[in-house]
């Protein structure tokens, strides 16, 4: 899928996102990360392990095919291991945004507010 296709794709067709997919899109939206980097970032953010290597790469595989994330070249001069880095594509960012808006609307609804107040 090329970039021009990306511009034309309606992000809403991917919604709703699975929670882990959404999390991966968010984690990769501001900086490229390698596989274990994503796992670590998820732990840093949420305080506990929510992603496992096996399922992470299944998500990466699926979302790469869908054009939501892509791999990027990152210079790793000091590293003994060459790792592949991933980041969210424009389409991915738009999908994440759409999902966030969807969730926001959902969370902003009266019933959700009542639920959160309890």
């Amino acid at each position: 899928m090329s970039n021009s296709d990306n511009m034309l794709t309606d992000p809403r067709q991917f919604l709703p996102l699975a929670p882990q997919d959404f999390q991966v899109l968010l984690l990769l939206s501001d900086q490229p990360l390698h596989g274990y980097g994503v796992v670590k970032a998820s732990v840093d953010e949420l305080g506990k392990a929510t992603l496992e290597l096996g399922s992470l790469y299944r998500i990466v595989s699926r979302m790469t095919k869908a054009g939501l994330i892509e791999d990027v070249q990152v210079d790793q001069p000091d590293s003994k291991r060459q790792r592949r880095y991933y980041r969210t594509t424009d389409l991915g960012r738009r999908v994440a945004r759409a999902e966030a808006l969807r969730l926001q609307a959902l969370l902003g609804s009266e019933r959700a507010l009542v639920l959160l107040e309890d």
Partner: protein
Amino acid sequence: MPALSDRWVEFLIRLFPEDFRHDYGADLLSAFKDQRDDASVRSRMELGKHLKVATTTTKVSWHLLKSALEERRAENARRPPAFQPRNEHMIRTTMSDLKYGLRGLLKQPGFTAISTLTLALGVGACTAIFSVVNGILLTPLPYLSPDQLVSVRVNSGIDADGGFYGTSEPEFWDFSSVARSFVDVGAMSGTEVTLGDSTGVRRIRVLRTTAGTLPMLGVNPELGRFFTPEEDLPGAAPTIVLSYGLWQTEFAGDPNVLGRTVIFDVIEQPLPIVGVMPAGFEFPDDTWEAWIPLSLNREDPWARNNHYLDVVARLAPEISLEEAQSEMNVLAARSTTDYPEYYPGPGYRIRLDGFHERIAGDVATPLFVLLGAVGFVVLMACVNVSNLLLARGETRKREIAIRNAVGASGRRLTQQLITENLLLAGVGGLFGIAVALVGTKVLLAMAPSGIPRLGHVRIDGAVLVFSLLVSVATGLLFGLVPAVQAARSELQEILKEGGGARGSSRTSHTLRRILVAIQVTLAVVLASGAGLMLRSVRNMYDVDTGFSTENVLTLRLNPSATKYDTGELRVAFYEGLLDQIKALPGVNSASAVFSLPLAGGTNNWSILVEGREAATIGDAPAARVQLCTPEYFETLGLTLLRGRFFDENDVADSPPVVVISETMARTHWPNEDPLGKRMKVWDESWPWLEVIGVVKDVRHRSVDQEPRTWWYVPYSQGYVSAYYSPRNMNLTVHSELELEQLAPLVRNTIGGFDASAPISRLQSMDQVFARSINGARFVTVLLAIFGLLALFLASVGVYGVISYAVSLRTHEIGLRRALGESGKSVLGNVLREGFVVSMIGVILGLLGSLFLSRFIETMVFGIAPTDPLTYTGVVAALLAAATGASLLPALRASRVDPMVALRIEN
């Protein structure tokens, strides 16, 4: 460990569909490595690191298995069903078998704990012993192409049965100039040098080597260079190459150490440091701290009969050890013809051995015996778990029958049982590795000094693969009998039986009896090995060594070579010093001796016996010489058989005298009175020595070696009558004082007498003795542990099978009791069953022990490896243990209440 976990994860990644694997397999592996490294840096201890890696790997494994399965499912959903790969079914079954097995194990924590523990002990002990075998015998020497290195030893024919020993200088030159089989030949000889200024802060064990020796090994210095052939020439200024360890401990790894001159050789020449060898380099073993030139004089070599050089050679490419050996045989035959005076009797022989074998060969037999013994322990653990599984199988019969009835094939059921067993073995193996990590540490801490290459013992990949193999093998082994048994069960009968464990369980009971008999067999073999070794060590303590170790302190003294360069000066030095030590409060006697018993070799010199002509040195007999001051006999409690010891009147200008050992008297003056007879050291120019006394034999080399011929010369006459009075001597001090009190007194006295004489090897004579039999004690302690373990496991086995037999027969016993059989008779019957099973095992075990006894023939001392008393003791102990183990169930049986027993049936 990391390498192993990587391979395991690589294997798991293969379970993913091919496309996925192609795109992300490498990534997944590198991410796993990241995670693993991250986990392991969190622990600072080696053991902790291993555990972290193990838990991370286990966790990741589980998730990878799950993800692989899900990914495959997802892929299949995308594809037409015809493309379903075959192995998916297998993965799914294995997963569900594993899950099911895990649940089953967790449901029976008692069974799981006991079998896991048994297996962990077995696998752990086996792995620990294997790690030692691997480090010492299997890990290659740390040199370039170590297989090409050979040791060269000779026998000149003078003491033809005395084994092979080092070579003389001319012989060494022969090898290096004539032999085509070798590309390089090196010679070496040990010595000590002093580190520090002339106050002698520390003595260092250094190896003098020819210039080509170190380069031949193919390991380059970490710093600087080797010494050059020019520096190895006689008269050249020598240099020194440090080991990494010495560089670290004495120079704190100082990179500017090269060129420093703080080490001095025996004639107090400075030895500039020219090189440092890298970490892990040792030659020939890790007891040598540095290397200096040997400085042989090729133009003027020492005599051909002076065998003091150890020789190592590198075989030319494409030349085998056998080919080199035949060339040596030709060379030896030619030398025998050329120098008949040096090579009498059967003549000169040269022997080549692989260098590794030469270094570690002595410990190979005990190590393999231990490995064999621990293998038996593993087998016993297997049999025990097998037995437990059979018992568990009884309770699962119904479950299996139902699965069978609803369509599971026999093969499918066996597969499931084997999966469960491998799971059990895997868990046991994991714990076993933990046991091995601790066990190896304990072994290393316990190990006697003098075992070569101990530094190479560690749990590495090879050892882990070994323990994995042992675990899998045990899993298959202990699972085999129960699995086949379970799959063969007759469906109809079990369902008909209605959940009971009687009737058709007879076959399984027979199987269990066979297993217990096997256990007893193994236990007999192990216990007799342990028994033989225990008696051998006891014999070593009881053997009459010919001297007493009690209340004797010893130390080695190295007075300055320049200061004491004549015999007179040395004699005066030791006499003066000993007078001061003898004057110390609490000291009974003190003496100086050249070669301390059980702590080192000595010179075997050619002698002339008056009245027996010897035209050449080859015709002259050889005997071992000891030089000592008069009080030596008193200090070490030697026993005088005839005549007198020497005393303070035997001095340089009085008639030369000699005291001989009883074996020496028997050998050279059989059926004669040796007193008054005369002998001298080789060559007519030396004076005759008159035999003035005969002492009881001393076991000098080791407790278990028969005494040789010895002659004792007064130290004060050494330089007049026996070539020289040596400079380095051992002091022996007899005192009622504790070692801790006495040592500082003696040290101060020596320091006050001559502060420049360095002291080394300060220890009690008891310690010397203990160290000399440490090896045998070490093997014995391990065998005893294995033997006790075996006895225990066998008793547990007998107990299990007999209690089970009683439970099977409760009904029958009840009936018999109701019909009037006495409790006593029931007791006897049950005990007899236990006795019969153990007796079969005992007989087989005895046969096995007799067959295996030849392997420990070289290790036992003072008894035959077929010693009847030991075997009787072992049999008695085992039968007692077995009877004890069946007593409890037998008592239970004899108290069966007929009414209760008969009611159970309905």
